[in-house]
């Protein structure tokens, strides 16, 4: 099974690639439209900032391609953020696949970024066999919308997994979340 990891300029391409390699799956890091379209799974591995990732996708003419994908797509961290309509990070217009916006943490008692392992509570039965601790590194977050499939708490409830149709997003980094992350990726790859 082939996984297309979209090259959108982030710095975690290698870590995501290695995580997928450990699951014995074929992967390719690419911005080639035909390779993305013909892959069985697509990963948006964004790291950096929403505006940089959106600019990169725009300059590579990938915006409409991504929106029209029918296979399972997983957005990681910024890759999840850009699934929404808008991110306060750089006031960026995003893909608009999922309704809602990404907000900056705005609590003076909280340290920003959120950095480290936080507990994830899965809301649906089919996800409840997954482990509970994952690695987060983020200054911006999604509030709880209808598309939220798992929540975490960082001073307030935040969405840690979201899903709409074939598009899934996770705020945490499964590629850096030890065995919990492996199980989460296996779950994603079991959805076809």
């Amino acid at each position, binding site marked *: 099974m082939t996984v297309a990891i979209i090259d959108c300029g982030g*710095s*975690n*391409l*290698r*870590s995501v690639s*290695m*995580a997928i390699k*450990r699951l014995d799956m074929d992967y390719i890091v690419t911005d080639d439209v035909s390779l993305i379209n013909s892959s069985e799974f697509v990963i948006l591995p964004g*790291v*950096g*900032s929403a505006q940089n990732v959106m600019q990169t996708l725009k300059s590579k003419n990938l915006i409409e391609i991504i929106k029209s994908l029918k296979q399972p797509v997983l957005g990681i961290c910024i890759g999840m953020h850009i699934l929404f309509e808008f991110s306060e990070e750089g006031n960026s217009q995003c893909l608009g696949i999922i309704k809602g916006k990404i907000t900056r943490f705005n609590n003076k008692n909280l*340290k*920003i*970024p*959120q*950095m*480290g*392992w*936080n*507990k994830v509570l899965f809301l649906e039965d089919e996800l409840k066999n997954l482990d509970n*601790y994952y*690695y*987060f*590194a*983020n*200054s911006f977050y999604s509030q709880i919308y209808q598309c939220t499939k798992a929540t975490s*708490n*960082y*001073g307030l409830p935040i969405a840690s997994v979201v899903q709409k149709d074939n598009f899934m997003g996770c705020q945490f*980094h499964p*590629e*850096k*979340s*030890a065995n919990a*992350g*492996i199980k989460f990726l296996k779950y994603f790859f079991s959805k076809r």
Partner: protein
Amino acid sequence: MITKRIIPCLDVRDGMVVKGIQFKNHKIVGSIVSLANKYSDEGADELVFYDIGASTIGSTLKKEWVSKIADVINIPFCVAGGIKSVDDARDILNLGADKVSINTPALQDPSLISALSKEFGSQCVVIGMDVKTIDEKSYLFAKTGSEKTSHQTNIIASDWIKKVQNLGAGEVVINSMNKDGMKNGYDIELLQDLSNVCKIPMIASGGAGSTKDFVDVFTNTNVDGALAASIFHNNEYSINQVKTSLKGNKINVRI
């Protein structure tokens, strides 16, 4: 809420893991990849690799070992030592590191912090601070990788924290030079003092000698993680023992 992090630190010189006492007399403790694997398997929340030779001799960090680590472990890791530019940092991050830590180069050119933060996001940018308290004032030291080059600056630690967080740093690691390698506890007073001004994650470093020292630092200060080297390298305590003890003291950890 987010858990407190336990972070083994591996000082690297000439491709091997070494450990000194108060930044001197380094001895080899093992190979990088085998120790990284071991700690990852034992439940470390993160790893720090400190290339202590790199910044003092002005060399570019030798990079192959970074990708070797990224290929075997699936927890976050930070690389420090000899990173002087955005290009240096990009190389390290592209090899699979999650964060870079800069120390002396940030002191020499603070604008490097904002450049890194803008390019990679603040979550990638860690500022290492070697701090020594002299006559009740806490000063930053530079080039501490070797006793020949190590020297005091006139910068006060709390002032530096305020500055780096405004420039976009995502985390600070406070190495207490008074406590490093002494194994008689973290520098609680220094960490309390610096916590008052710190709005980004802060990691305690220097002085861990027993599980009680970890309990003390998380009970008495607001730090987000505790870094340690010799206590783990010498197999005195496992990471799991430390975390079990923390959990028993109602400190939120990932077990």
